[in-house]
């Protein structure tokens, strides 16, 4: 079976997404998100499901939590050698799973809490974040059979081939609690054989779940590869995660500015803006022209302390937002919100290209 990304093999997919965010930082049990995504069963086809939880590893909050799939013991050995050479490993273990009859062919799934070795940092002349990013990209590109599918601090992704509710059960999500959860059910148009292809896609805690098939993919990818990112999966989600990582962490754009790059307002809209706003938007569109995303998408971008939801500028994919007290719910369909919050206070559909940005109160 061919893996996505191998020899330029690219698999388009449709999907369901869901997210919950508590702005006071109150913990939400992982099973809540499983219940929400499960209602949209028909939007996935059993070929991929996954979750990202934020605030789930408070005991190791200063360590990068690497979740890694291994295809073989050799891959594990090689990867661990690499990790030992570059990082101080505070803890490592198998990620606990529960047998589920619908989840089969699982790879070895390991978790490491790491921080870069000081000596290596000095040697590389990079700061911690850049160093870690390079190491993750290196493992995914160069160590065959190893895939770091989650690498943020105090967060983790859990994904597999299967329907999302089975994936949640398999990873025992009821045992985790976090202030933010996102979920994804996948409907690929071709058979992927590989767990790494499921969503969310994460790079250093910036995780993306995405519904859509973007038409700008190759232009976006070329730009990101030129900027030093290696796209190995050839999925939309991968490149979108890299794009936000690049715009927000490397170029230091605000979330709103990054949203104005990827879902840029139309020129006619820009022309009608007040001068300052107009200048800014022309600047962003011109400077980051290759990072515009066209074609349908709705994405949830999770990051430390926040969550952003964004639709393509024509709103070719559904996305609904619900609010109740401290909590905000975002999903492809309203039913996924009602399933876990029947008496929601307010429910609305954000416009195409208008980001919904949520952040923790204490950070704001």
């Amino acid at each position: 079976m061919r893996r996505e990304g191998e020899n330029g093999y690219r698999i388009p997919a449709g999907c369901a997404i869901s997210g919950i965010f508590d702005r006071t930082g109150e913990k939400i049990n992982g099973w809540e998100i499983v219940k929400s995504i499960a209602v949209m069963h028909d939007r996935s086809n059993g070929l991929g499901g996954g979750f990202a939880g934020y605030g789930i590893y408070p005991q190791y909050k200063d360590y990068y939590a690497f979740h890694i799939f291994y295809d073989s013991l050799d891959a594990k050995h090689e990867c661990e050698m690499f990790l030992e050479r570059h990082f101080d490993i505070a803890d490592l273990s198998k990620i606990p799973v529960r047998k589920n009859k619908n989840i089969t062919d699982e790879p070895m799934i390991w978790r490491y809490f790491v921080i870069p070795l000081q000596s290596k940092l000095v040697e590389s002349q990079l700061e911690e974040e850049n160093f870690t990013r390079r190491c993750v990209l290196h493992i995914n590109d160069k160590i065959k059979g190893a895939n770091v599918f989650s690498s943020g601090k105090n967060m983790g992704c859990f994904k597999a081939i299967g329907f999302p509710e089975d994936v949640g059960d398999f990873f025992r999500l009821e045992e985790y609690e976090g202030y933010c959860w996102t979920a994804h059910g996948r409907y690929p148009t071709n058979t992927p054989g590989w767990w790494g292809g499921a969503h969310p896609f994460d790079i250093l805690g910036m995780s993306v779940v995405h519904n859509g098939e973007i038409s700008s993919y190759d232009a976006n990818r070329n730009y990101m590869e030129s900027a030093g990112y290696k796209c190995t999966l050839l999925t939309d989600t991968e490149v979108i995660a890299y794009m936000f990582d690049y715009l927000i962490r490397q170029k230091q754009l605000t979330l709103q500015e990054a949203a104005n790059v990827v879902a840029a307002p139309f020129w006619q809209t820009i022309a009608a803006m007040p001068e300052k706003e107009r200048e800014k938007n022309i600047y962003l569109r011109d400077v980051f022209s290759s990072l515009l995303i066209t074609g349908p998408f709705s994405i949830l971008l999770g990051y430390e302390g926040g969550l952003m939801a964004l639709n393509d500028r024509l709103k070719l994919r559904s996305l609904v937002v619900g609010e109740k007290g401290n909590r905000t719910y975002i999903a492809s369909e309203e039913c996924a919100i009602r399933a876990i919050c029947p008496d929601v206070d307010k429910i609305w559909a954000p416009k195409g290209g208008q980001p919904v940005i949520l952040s923790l109160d204490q950070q704001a």
Partner: protein
Amino acid sequence: MPLNYIFPEFEVVRNADQCVACRACERQCANEVHHYSEEYGRMIADNSKCVDCQRCVTICPTHALKIVKSDNTFRENGNWSAQTIKEIYRQADSGGALLSSMGNPQNYPVYWDKILINASQVTNPSIDPLREPMETRVFLGKKPSTITRDENGELVTKRPPRLELSVPIMFSAMSYGSISYNAHASLARAAKELGIYYNTGEGGLHEDFYCYGPNTIVQVASGRFGVHKDYLNAGAGIEIKIGQGAKPGIGGHLPGKKVNEDVSHTRMIPMGSDAISPAPHHDIYSIEDLRQLIYSLKEATAYQKPVIVKIAAVHNVAAIASGIARSGADIIAIDGYRGGTGAAPTRIRDNVGIPIELALAAVDARLREEGIRNEVSIVVGGSIRSSADVVKAIALGADACYIASSALMALGCHLCRSCQEGKCNWGIATQRPDLVKRLNPNVGSKRLVNLITAWRHEIMEMMGGMGINSIEVLKGNRMMLRGIGLNEKELEILGIKHAGE
């Protein structure tokens, strides 16, 4: 009279039933093919003078005329084509190097015709340009590599000098001298109306056209004809012409008969003198010299104008482009071997240079690999024949396209390839006042606007089909292309897959 070994290439066929002897063909043929015979009471033709420019055919009110290729046959074989035989005879007659015009006509592969474009089905929607915005605006120039903010944390939105195009097509360099005043007037007016640019070529800028400066690219070529400070500051951008696709490695040659008073004044050369530009710029023998010229021009224009460096597509084009990108140029223009010209040595036109498709793919890939793709924009020409070629060029990585032959055809050019004679019946490649006036810029500019407007519509249709509603992400989107009938190596260089993959 010595024997003429060359049989007339074309025959004028006149339908006697239709011909009303209005003599329009006679009056309109600068080659003096047609004349009215009082003796016979009808029109007769001298086939040997016909270049098949189709002027008489087009103007004949009763459609009594057609020009056909003579079927007179040399004893050809696989090695000795009629063309080759004819060229031998011509050289034996004249003792000179053969001259030709327009682009390389040889039967080399046209890669545009071996590339197919994608469209959306089911998994993502196509977009209807009649109902949704479809954006074709592009900017050319360097992109800033660092983001700066003011003390309030606001983005500093100043950008390096750039060109803004409503659609990624520009009229390529054609000098005043090689083409007529009215041709320039048509191009300038159309560029202004379309929100794009035309290019002066190396012949300077006629004083009447300074008013079109915001839509003009002024060229600095090896002959430096017509270059002075006001000229440099008149345009929106400055192009340094290193080479041209039709004749890489050699300079231009404007015959003295085309240098009339106006041309002489604009070029700043004596009337009637041949304008021969040197093969290289004699102040550029190396890449570091190019950097000096780029910065001299930037100094002269207070860093307000983007500088384009135009090169011919030659074997080592990717490395050369990489060098140019690091020399301070804002835009690199690459001209393929099919690119046209008013006059070039035939052997060079037909045998030197490489296809623009391969050159573009190689340059774009190299600049990306080196992480300097955002330092420059890429403009390609030679030859872009249709909106589909534009779409394919953009998807291969070009920021915009240059068109010249297509633009001339909109003005009436029928590719008769006799520009060097200065007797263009369409008023384009001539300075003879009676011929120049045949090109009314009201008509010419309208036809150019029509052409680009039509192409823009078609580009939007194709983009919509691909589900792309903004042309900036068509750029370098090679997954939207597939090759057909190409070998592995060709696909590898083009960076695309084969149809069916």
